[in-house]
């Protein structure tokens, strides 16, 4: 009796204790999210994934929502909501298997229908999102099971998975109508508080479908409109992570204690292009002379302080691995040859041009250096600097004869050819039209034979060096800095796509 009383007491006290202990141990299997990361960034304007564009907007959206497939820092396609996929032999049907046990932040279950609804929304021409042209090649999207979805294409597209990982392709819940004011995603973080133009606070989604992620308990995104102020706040300890800054600010952080800096090579570039459909650019000798008068190494040293990589007048940069042919390079600088070509073209007494440039990044500097370099070949340049929003705002940039344009980094090169250089393309700023080029670009963008594509890209680079309308002097690097108490961060070429799920705090 006494014994049994003792035993009862034992049960009463120790069983709950054991349960608590077991629960604690179980939780230790996946350490709980902890720590706060404070990120400084530009204020966000758009929050609906279909309309985001800036780094900050994409960073917020890709933390709250998930992509079907994602791209890692080395530009490889990796699973996210889709755990695996099959491509039919004809290359036209992609079938995705989706992750199990995924929930939206409001507690509802994620299904294949949400994927269908999201991509139907993005490709709907009536809604007019920029993705509608990107996805115009999709014939049909069908939920073939609770957690299985099939995309059928009209024509083969070897880069379709990259298209599916487009910045805007974040999966929303079926029927979402208030994506611009509410944040109901499946993503690793939930929005706790958003004060426009001030800050946005995120807390870890404890039901996130990937075990052990996110590792941080909280992320505070603090908005700065001034880069200098942002970097000063990092230096002063009010921020932990800053992405995208000028070379000068990056250099100034090199000796700062407790801060790790990184320069990430990208395929982003500034290009100088001459309209090829009217004088003086309709004489191919003129752009050839400008190319000969350009010292790319000096430009890289002065404008980018040596960060990044030399460009060779083609957007297919060194980051694209086998697609980039390092053997194709423009001829070395030769001022005398440039002068001779200009004389042949009827500009023996020199040529006067106005060089238009947006006021952002190193573009005005690039203009100033080109002015000095080309002057030696008898080309007189007058520089016209315009605010970026004005320059790109009214399509004036597509009209001017000679202009500088910045192009962001993309995970694959076909994009640049299709929108910038193919005859009649939407952003064909140089008004370039070359039948051989068009055929090569079409081949590269559709063939399923990788060897054939590599050859086509090599031919395109050769063609652009010989008669292309653009000078691409460099590919720029992207800069970032993070406090050294954090690990597991890898910045991507487009900083807004950097993965915040894997960052953890060490102390």
């Amino acid at each position: 009796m006494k014994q049994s009383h003792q035993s009862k007491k034992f049960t009463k006290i120790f069983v709950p204790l054991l349960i608590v202990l077991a629960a604690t141990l179980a939780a230790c299997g996946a350490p709980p999210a902890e720590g706060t990361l404070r990120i400084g960034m530009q204020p966000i304007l758009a929050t609906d994934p279909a309309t985001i564009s800036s780094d900050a907007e994409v960073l917020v959206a890709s933390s709250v929502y998930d992509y079907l497939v994602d791209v890692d820092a080395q530009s490889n396609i990796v699973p996210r909501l889709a755990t695996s996929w099959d491509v039919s032999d004809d290359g036209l049907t992609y079938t995705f298997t989706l992750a199990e046990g995924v929930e939206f932040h409001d507690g509802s279950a994620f299904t294949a229908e949400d994927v269908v609804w999201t991509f139907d929304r993005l490709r709907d021409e009536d809604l007019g999102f920029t993705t509608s042209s990107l996805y115009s090649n999709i014939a049909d999207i069908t939920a073939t099971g609770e957690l299985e979805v099939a995309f059928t294409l009209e024509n083969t597209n070897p880069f379709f998975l990259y298209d599916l990982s487009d910045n805007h392709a974040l999966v929303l819940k079926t029927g979402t109508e208030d994506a611009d004011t509410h944040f109901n995603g499946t993503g690793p973080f939930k929005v706790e508080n958003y004060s426009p133009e001030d800050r946005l606070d995120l807390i870890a989604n404890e039901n996130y479908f990937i075990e052990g992620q996110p590792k941080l308990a909280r992320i505070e995104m603090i908005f700065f409109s001034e880069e200098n102020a942002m970097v000063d706040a990092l230096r002063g300890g009010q921020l932990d992570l800053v992405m995208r800054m000028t070379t000068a600010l990056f250099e100034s952080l090199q000796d700062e204690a407790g801060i790790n800096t990184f320069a990430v090579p990208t395929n982003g570039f500034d290009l100088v292009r001459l309209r090829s459909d009217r004088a003086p650019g309709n004489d191919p000798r003129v752009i050839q002379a400008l190319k000969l008068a350009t010292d790319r190494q000096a430009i890289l040293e002065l404008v980018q302080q040596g960060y990044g990589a030399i460009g060779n007048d083609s957007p297919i940069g060194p980051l694209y691995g086998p697609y980039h042919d390092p053997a194709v390079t423009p001829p070395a600088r030769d001022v005398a040859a440039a002068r001779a070509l200009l004389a042949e073209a009827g500009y023996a007494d020199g040529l006067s041009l106005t060089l238009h440039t947006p006021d952002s990044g190193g573009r005005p500097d690039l203009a100033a250096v080109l002015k000095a370099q080309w002057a030696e070949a008898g080309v007189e340049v007058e520089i016209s600097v315009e605010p970026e929003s004005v320059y790109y705002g009214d399509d004036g940039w597509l009209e001017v004869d000679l202009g500088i344009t910045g192009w962001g980094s993309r995970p694959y090169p076909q994009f640049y050819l299709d929108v910038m250089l193919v005859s009649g393309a939407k952003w064909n700023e140089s008004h370039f039209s070359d039948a051989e080029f068009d055929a090569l670009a079409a081949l590269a963008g559709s063939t399923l034979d990788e060897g054939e594509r590599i050859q086509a890209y090599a031919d395109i680079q050769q063609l652009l060096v010989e008669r292309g309308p653009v000078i691409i002097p460099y590919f720029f690097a992207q800069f970032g800095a993070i406090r050294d108490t954090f690990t597991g961060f890898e910045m991507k070429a487009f900083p807004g796509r950097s993965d915040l799920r894997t960052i953890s705090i060490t102390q």
Partner: protein
Amino acid sequence: MVSRIRTLAETKSAASKWGRRFLDSVRTIYSRPATAFGASVVLLFVLLAVLGPLIAPYGANQQIPADARQAPSTAHWFGTDHLGRDVFSRVVIGTRDILSLAGTGTLLSVVMGTSLGLLSGYRGGWFDELLMRFFDSLLAMPALLLALLLLGTLGPSRQGVLLVIVVVYTPIVARVVRSVVLAIKTKGFIEAARVQGESAGRILFREILPSVLPALAVEAALRFSYAIFLAASLGFLGVGVQPPSPDWGLMVNEARRTFSQVPWALYFPAAAISLLVVGVNLAADGLKQVLLKAD
């Protein structure tokens, strides 16, 4: 008529009288340290403007890649900027640009403002009313806003900045002149001239203008300092003179982006702007003292 024929002795004494007055003025200027400082600064910058390209060791847009981002040294007194341009040379060569731009602008606004002010004050009536209300409407807008509006329409250029200075400062000069005219116009000697049948032009320019001159000179000097500031501000905002010209405001703007790395590229042009504006202001203040005393 007889009185107009001067004897040699009279001419001599007149010359020595002017000489005395000039010496007196110089003495007055240099008896006040602030004015002396201001006048010396203005003199220094005028010298730089005249001799600029001779003094500057490098070209304004000469890029020396190997020397980029160097701190001030004996080779580069003010250091070099991010594109390897010698900051000292750019500041020196830029002196002529800003002085000629602000000077021409001030001169034009003074000439136009004086003519309009004289006419408006003397004529009065509907002309005066219309002109003054129009000027009021221009003055109601902050100078910089008006400037941005104009340059936004015209597109950024040196001529645009000149026009802006004239549009912004003509009304101010005109109002100052007009107020002096209003005070003088009722005085006896003007009445007398009118009764004598002198033409309006003669009365305006021979009788009234001399009385306006002291106030006008002070106003012109002040306008000059504001014009320097306005031109530099517009350059800084990127709507004025276009790169790569060595405009001080533009230099400050460009250097702002690289400030954390090459701060001297910002310090020197910014200091030049401040020094010149303060110098002109102090000199204008001194001029006011001299002319008031003379009055």
